[in-house]
C-alpha cells in the first residue's frame, strides 16, 4: 500500500512497524515447529521492537498445559533455538501476555472457549484485536481446525476491516491435485482468500527475495534473461540428512511432495516469471501462476523428464551410513523416492527451448540450495583453442542456503605474456556485506501476515497449478511401484539416471 494511503499515524514508519494489536494463536503449540521456529520468531520480533504493544500469544493443543508451564516451554525453546540469546526484558513482556488453551481440534466447545479467551483479552485492553491463527499441525487435522474456526465465528472476526482474522497454514497443501483442491475448498468455505497465508518458508529467505531485486532492479540482467542468452537453468535443493526419525512421515511423502512440488517450484516461478506490474501481492502471484501454467506436462518413463531414486549406504563426513531401505520405520520394499530430478520445459515466448533442471534429495554431498543460470557461450572462434583457453560458460548462481549470496563466473586473462584465460568468480555474500544478523524466514513471514502482506505466501491456485503438474508423475510412480527406482550412494550428488537426464542435451549437473 502506498505510504500516502496508510493511516496518517503510520505514514513515515516502515510497513513492518505498523502491525495492529494482534493475538497469535498457534495450533500445534507443543509441536517441533513451534519450538524451533515460531516461538523464537516471536521473541526476535519483540527484540527488534516490531511487535505491536498489544501483542498476545496463545498456544492451543490437545494436551492440557498450564499457562506457566507453556511459558516455561517457550522460554526453553528460545534458549535452545533462537538466533539471539534470551533477553529477559523482552521475553518477560511477551510472556506476560502468553497463555494456553487446551482442547481437541475437532471439539467445537474448545473453539468457543478460545473465542471467549480472545474476547476477554479485548475486554481487558479495551480495544479490538486482530487474530492470526497459525496452523502448525499435521495435515490430518487441518480440516477440523478450519471448520471449527468457521463454526465458532473466529474466522469471520472483523471481516472487511483492516484487522480481520487471518490464518497461516503450513505445508503440505494437499498430497496431490485432488486433496489440494479439497483443502482449498475447505479453506474457502471458512475464509476468504485474502485472509489466507499458505506458508513456504523458502519465500522468507533473503536470497529468494533478492532474486526479484536482482532480476528487476538491475538493468544488466533482464535483457539477458531469456532463451536468446540463457542456455539452461539448474535448481538444486540438496540435504545432507537422511530421514532420521521421520521415516514414518517420509514414507508417505517423498522428495517430490516434500521439496520439489513446493520449495523448488517457488524457486522456478520466481526465476522464470515475467516482471509483475507492481510489487503488490496479487500482481506477483499472478505472474507466478502464469509461468507455472506454462510448464509442459512431464513425460514419465524411459527417456522422460523425471528421475527418482533412493539413497543407498555410503559415507557421510567420513562415516558409513545406512541406506534408506535399512532406516528405522522404512518398508524394505518401499517405493518412496528420496531423490527426484526433473527437466522442465516452459512453453512461453521467453523460455521456449531452455531446459530448467531441478533436483532435490536427501543424503547428498552437502546441504545446499541454489539457482544457477548458465548463459550461452560467446559465438565465434576467437578463443576456440581449448588447450589454451579454458573458457567457461558464464554462470550466475544464487545461493539460497547456506552462505546466502550470489556469484558470477566470468572468464579472465591469466597474467602473463601469453593470452591464456581462466574462469574467475565474483562473490557477493550477505553475511559479510550486510552483517549476519538477518532475520530468519519465519520472522519475516509471521510479521508479513500480521500486517496483511501476502506477497511471500502461496495463493490457492498456485498450489493447485503445481499439483496439476506433478500429480500425473506421482500416479505413474505409484502404479510402477519400485520399477524404475534408481539408487545413489549416500554422500554423492545423486543417481546415474539424473546425469543421463542432462547428458542428452550435453549438460552436466553442477556440484555447488
Amino acid at each position, binding site marked *: 500500500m502506498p505510504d500516502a494511503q496508510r*493511516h496518517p499515524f*503510520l505514514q513515515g514508519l*516502515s510497513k513492518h512497524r505498523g502491525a495492529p494489536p494482534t493475538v497469535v494463536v498457534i495450533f500445534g503449540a507443543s509441536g517441533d515447529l513451534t519450538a524451533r521456529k515460531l516461538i523464537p520468531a516471536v521473541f526476535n520480533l519483540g527484540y527488534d521492537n516490531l511487535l505491536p504493544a498489544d501483542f498476545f500469544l496463545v498456544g492451543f493443543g490437545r494436551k492440557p498445559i498450564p499457562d506457566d508451564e507453556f511459558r516455561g516451554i517457550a522460554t526453553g525453546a528460545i534458549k535452545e533455538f533462537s538466533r539471539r540469546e534470551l533477553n529477559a526484558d523482552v521475553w518477560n513482556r511477551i510472556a506476560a501476555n502468553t497463555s494456553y488453551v487446551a482442547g481437541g481440534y475437532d471439539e467445537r466447545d474448545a473453539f468457543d472457549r478460545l473465542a471467549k479467551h480472545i474476547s476477554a483479552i479485548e475486554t481487558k485492553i*479495551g480495544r479490538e484485536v486482530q487474530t492470526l491463527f497459525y496452523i502448525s499441525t499435521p495435515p490430518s487435522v487441518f480440516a477440523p481446525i478450519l471448520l471449527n474456526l468457521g463454526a465458532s465465528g473466529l474466522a469471520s472476526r472483523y471481516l472487511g476491516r483492516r484487522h480481520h482474522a487471518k490464518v497461516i497454514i503450513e505445508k503440505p497443501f494437499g498430497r496431490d491435485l485432488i486433496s489440494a483442491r479439497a483443502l482449498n475448498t475447505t479453506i474457502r468455505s471458512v475464509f476468504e482468500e485474502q485472509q489466507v497465508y499458505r506458508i513456504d518458508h523458502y519465500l522468507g529467505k533473503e536470497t529468494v527475495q533478492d532474486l526479484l531485486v536482482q532480476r528487476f532492479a538491475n538493468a544488466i540482467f533482464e535483457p539477458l534473461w531469456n532463451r536468446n542468452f540463457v542456455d539452461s537453468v539448474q535448481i538444486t535443493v540438496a540435504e545432507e540428512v537422511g530421514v532420521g526419525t521421520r521415516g514414518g512421515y517420509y514414507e508417505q511423502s517423498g522428495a517430490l511432495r516434500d521439496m520439489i512440488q513446493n520449495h523448488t517450484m517457488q524457486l522456478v516461478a520466481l526465476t522464470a516469471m515475467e516482471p509483475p506490474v507492481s510489487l503488490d501481492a496479487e500482481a506477483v502471484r499472478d505472474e507466478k501462476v502464469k509461468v507455472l501454467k506454462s510448464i509442459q506436462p512431464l513425460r514419465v518413463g524411459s527417456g522422460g523428464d523425471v528421475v527418482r531414486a533412493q539413497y543407498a549406504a555410503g559415507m557421510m563426513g567420513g562415516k558409513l551410513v545406512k541406506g534408506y531401505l535399512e532406516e528405522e520405520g522404512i518398508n524394505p520394499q518401499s517405493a518412496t523416492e528420496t531423490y527426484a530430478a526433473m527437466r522442465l520445459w516452459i512453453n512461453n515466448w521467453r523460455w521456449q527451448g531452455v531446459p530448467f533442471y531441478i533436483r532435490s534429495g536427501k543424503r547428498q554431498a552437502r546441504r545446499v540450495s541454489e539457482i544457477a543460470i548458465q548463459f550461452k557461450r560467446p559465438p565465434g572462434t576467437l578463443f576456440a583453442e581449448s588447450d589454451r583457453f579454458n573458457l567457461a560458460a558464464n554462470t550466475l548462481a544464487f545461493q539460497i542456503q547456506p552462505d546466502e549470496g550470489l556469484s558470477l563466473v566470468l572468464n579472465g586473462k591469466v597474467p602473463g605474456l601469453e593470452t591464456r584465460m581462466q574462469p574467475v568468480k565474483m562473490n557477493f555474500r550477505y553475511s559479510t556485506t550486510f552483517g549476519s544478523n538477518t532475520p530468519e524466514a519465519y520472522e519475516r513471514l509471521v510479521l508479513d501476515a500480521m500486517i496483511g502482506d501476502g506477497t511471500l505466501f502461496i495463493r490457492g491456485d498456485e498450489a493447485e497449478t503445481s499439483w496439476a503438474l506433478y500429480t500425473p508423475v506421482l500416479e505413474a510412480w505409484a502404479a510402477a511401484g519400485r520399477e524404475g527406482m534408481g539408487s545413489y550412494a549416500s554422500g554423492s550428488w545423486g543417481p546415474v539416471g539424473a546425469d543421463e537426464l542432462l547428458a542428452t542435451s550435453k549438460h552436466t549437473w553442477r556440484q555447488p
Partner: protein
Amino acid sequence: MAAIFNALPGIEVPVDSINKYLAQMWVDTAAKGGPAPAADDVKATQVNFVLHLGFNTTVDDALEQFQTAVLFSRRAPCRVVVLCPLPIDDPGTEMRAKIYGECHLGKSKGDTRCCEFVLLSYPFGARQYLESELSVCLITDLPLYYWVHRFASIHRLTEYQYLLRRSERILIDSSIADLGIFTFAWPRPEAVRDLVYARLLPVRQSIGQLLSGYEPAALIGGLRMVTATHDEKLTAEGRVLLAWTRERLLGCGALPEVGFDCRPASPTEGGLLRLAFEYANGHCFQWYGNVERKNACIEADYGAGRSTMHIAVSLLTPDAALSDAMFF
C-alpha cells in the same frame, strides 16, 4: 583538533600512501598470526561514511562518536573517513592521515566483519583540496553518507559542497547542532536527516501503532490542545515529537482551533517524555514514559472506555539511529 586527531586510534601513515597502507594493514595482521581475514570476504563494504568533526567537538566527544561509527560499521560494513579540521591556519601545517582497522568476530567464520577507517587531519585553509583527497579515500561506486557533528557554525558547510551534493544522506543532530541548521540553504534538503527524529523511532512507532487503530476523524474531533513535555535534556526530542505529531494530525484533517505547546517538565525528571492530547468531548490520549528507564504508559479513551497500556520503550542507540537515518 590536533589533539583530537592524536587521540583517535589508528596508525599514522603518509597521506599519499593511504591505500597502500590500508592494504598492508590486513597483510600484516595475518602475518603476525592474528585473525587473518579471508581477503575481501570479510571486508565487504556496503557504503562510504564520512564523519566530519566540527570545531565544537572535544576529545572525549570525538572518541565517543568514533566508537559509534565502529559500532555502526559492524551493522553495515563500510569505509569510514573521519575528517578532523584544524582551526588555526599555520602555513606550515600539512594534512595528516591515520588508518585504523577492526575485525568483529561473531559466532562463526561467516560472522566475521572488518571495517576500515581513514582519519584525515587538515588545515582549514586546505579545505579546497579535501575533495580530491577524499575521493582517493572513498570506495568508488558505493553510496556516500555524511555525518556532520558539532560544527561551530553550520554555515561552514558551504565550504563542503562536494559532500553536501554527493551524499545520499546528510546526518545532523538538532539537539547539539548550531541553530543555523534550521535556516541553512541545504542544496538538497530532501537528503537531510535529523538523528533526533531517528532516535525517536520507538516512541513514534508505539504512538503510531496505537493511534492508527482509531479513525482519523476520531483523533481530531474535539481536539483542543497537544502538549509535549520533556526533561530538559530532551528538549530537542520534545520539539521533534511535537512537530511529528502535528504533521500526523494534519494528515487526519484540518486543525483550525488546536494549540500546540512544547514545554520542559517541572520538576524535571531524567528521561521524561510526555505527549498529551486534550479534547473538548471527553476523549483523551496520553503517552508518557521514561526513556532512560525504558518504560512508558499509554492511556487512551476514544469513546469505548479508557485503556491503559504499559510498554517497553527507549530511544534508539546512537549506532541504531545512524542506521535508521541512513537507510530508512
